[in-house]
């Protein structure tokens, strides 16, 4: 007689995700977009995004420039890909920062409970009331001003490569501000999960075995919350990519001539009546990326956390 192999949570979830056509399609679309943004520019197929060619500005698609050239004659496709790198990097690094803070804060608050929990959550309530974008604009302006002051030191005295320093000066203020101000919801999600999980018998068993609090919280309880954390992380990324684009659109994010999707959209909007191509193409790629991330997040929620899905 053969004992039937049980299904793990993850293989079950994978099966459910595959049945959700929109989410599955989104997953593959994202794989394509990511590889295009991060791998394609390393190949010789794609021209340098910063080479200007003013006589050929606004030139339509040609053999050397598949999507044509922009207002400075730069190759639109390579601008799009390098801009995508920046936008995606900001989205991911900011999300990483925010989930580390959010998980730690929420887990401690939920695990400690009682008065500590009350105070910690009241602080989150107050922070929640602060207008997110207003603070982000102010903080990122301050941080980029501070980092800019040290730009020369990094290049001259520490002899860091210029492109790396350029990248840091551009994206670090955004990643830090968005990440440092965007963790409240994650903290609330994790806290409520920890509150209910810590009452389960296996945690009681861990306590009676004399495990340390740190071990119980981070090794016993948190791994069980991976589902909600993954789901919420996936839904955070598109929000943060959107925040970066909004800041760049308003002129307080990534600074030209560096490219990001927000920059391309705001530049494209200037030529919308004469050269709508410059707006259409970045708009399409940007919206498809956000749409895919959102669909994937929704699909993951249905797959990993069937109780939370409202279908």
């Amino acid at each position: 007689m053969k004992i039937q192999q049980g299904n793990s949570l993850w293989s079950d979830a994978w099966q459910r995700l595959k049945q959700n056509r929109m989410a599955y399609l989104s997953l593959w679309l994202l794989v394509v977009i990511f590889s295009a943004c991060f791998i394609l520019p390393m190949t010789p197929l794609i021209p340098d995004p910063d080479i200007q060619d003013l006589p050929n500005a606004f030139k339509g698609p040609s053999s050397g420039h598949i999507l044509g050239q922009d207002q400075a004659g730069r190759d639109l496709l390579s601008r799009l890909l390098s801009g995508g790198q920046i936008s995606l990097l900001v989205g991911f690094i900011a999300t990483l920062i925010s989930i580390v803070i959010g998980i730690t804060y929420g887990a401690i608050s939920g695990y400690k409970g009682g008065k500590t929990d009350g105070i910690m959550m009241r602080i989150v309530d107050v922070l929640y009331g602060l207008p997110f974008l207003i603070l982000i604009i102010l903080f990122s302006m301050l941080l980029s001003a501070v980092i800019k002051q040290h730009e020369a030191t990094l290049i001259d005295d520490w002899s860091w490569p210029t492109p790396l320093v350029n990248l840091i000066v551009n994206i670090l203020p955004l990643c830090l501000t968005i990440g440092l101000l965007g963790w409240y919801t994650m903290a609330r999600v994790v806290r409520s999960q920890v509150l209910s999980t810590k009452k389960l018998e296996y945690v009681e068993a861990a306590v009676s075995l004399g495990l340390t609090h740190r071990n119980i919280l981070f090794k016993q309880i948190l791994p069980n919350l991976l589902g909600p954390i993954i789901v919420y992380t996936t839904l955070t990324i598109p929000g943060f990519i959107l925040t970066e684009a909004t800041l760049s659109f308003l002129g307080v994010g990534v600074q030209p001539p560096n490219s990001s999707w927000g920059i391309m959209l705001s530049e494209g909007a200037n030529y919308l009546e004469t050269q709508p191509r410059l707006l259409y193409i970045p708009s399409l790629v940007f919206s498809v990326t956000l749409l895919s991330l959102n669909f994937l997040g929704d699909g993951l929620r249905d797959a990993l956390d069937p109780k939370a899905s409202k279908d």
Partner: protein
Amino acid sequence: MLKTIINRMLQGVLVTFCLLTITFFLVRMMPGDALTNEKAMSPQVRQKNIEIFHLDKPQTVQYLYYWKNLLSGQMGYSSTKDQPVAKIISQSFPASAMLGILGMIIAVCIGIPAGIIAALKHNSLMDNGAMFVAMLGISVPSFVLGPLFAIFIATKVPFLKVAGWGDPFDWILPSLTLGLGTAAYLARITRAGMLDVLSQDYIRTAKAKGVSQFSIIRKHALKGGLIPSIAFLGPAFAMLITGSFVVETIFQVPGMGQHFVNSAKDRDYFLLQGMVLLFGGLIVIVNLAADILLAYLNPRLRDSL
């Protein structure tokens, strides 16, 4: 109930206080200041600012004077516009307020009915279609939607303009651009809330008693089902305010959004402080109103907090 409201109000005052304090010191930590601006201010304004706001004193002293002046109703002078901040606000507030109110009306009038209908026709073509459009609305930001509206609608319809804020027709496209994204969020939240309530036992009981579909929805489902949507109205309003910065730029609306971003860039301390006070205060007030409405709708919340 009263205790909850007072509690919330105190929290709102605390939030506003924190916001103003953070802004005050943040903008002074940035390199450059209101007096060494590239757009040099006139000697009179400079003198006036130094006199009123004691810019030559340490920051903590300035901070105390700021509160003293604010509490006596003085918002200060704008160093770049050479005008009292109160005057700039009173000139640009009407356009922003109109845009915000219209955006909110569009968001509520499209989002909530769409969510209710999607929940009632659960898993139908209409539900799936509405939710796909809502997902589109969340993923297509206003700075994509706005220019697209300008190209495809404003250039085709004779009485609509690509940009400007003259006659009431000019209000249509900016407020649609602003409101549709929020409508999409509201539709998703409303649908989830309604689905949750519609699967409750008391709805099934009402159905079994033979109550008509219409009165089940009106009398039993709506009050509970709309709670998440009402709770979202506060954040939705904050979204609209920050969204209006972008929409005002796209359609060249003479509102407060430009002043906010520019005053931070130009280190125009008092204009920025005035903008933050106004935006932050509005968000706090709307959050408070949404909380009170929520407590009215949901008896379980009345004694919490």
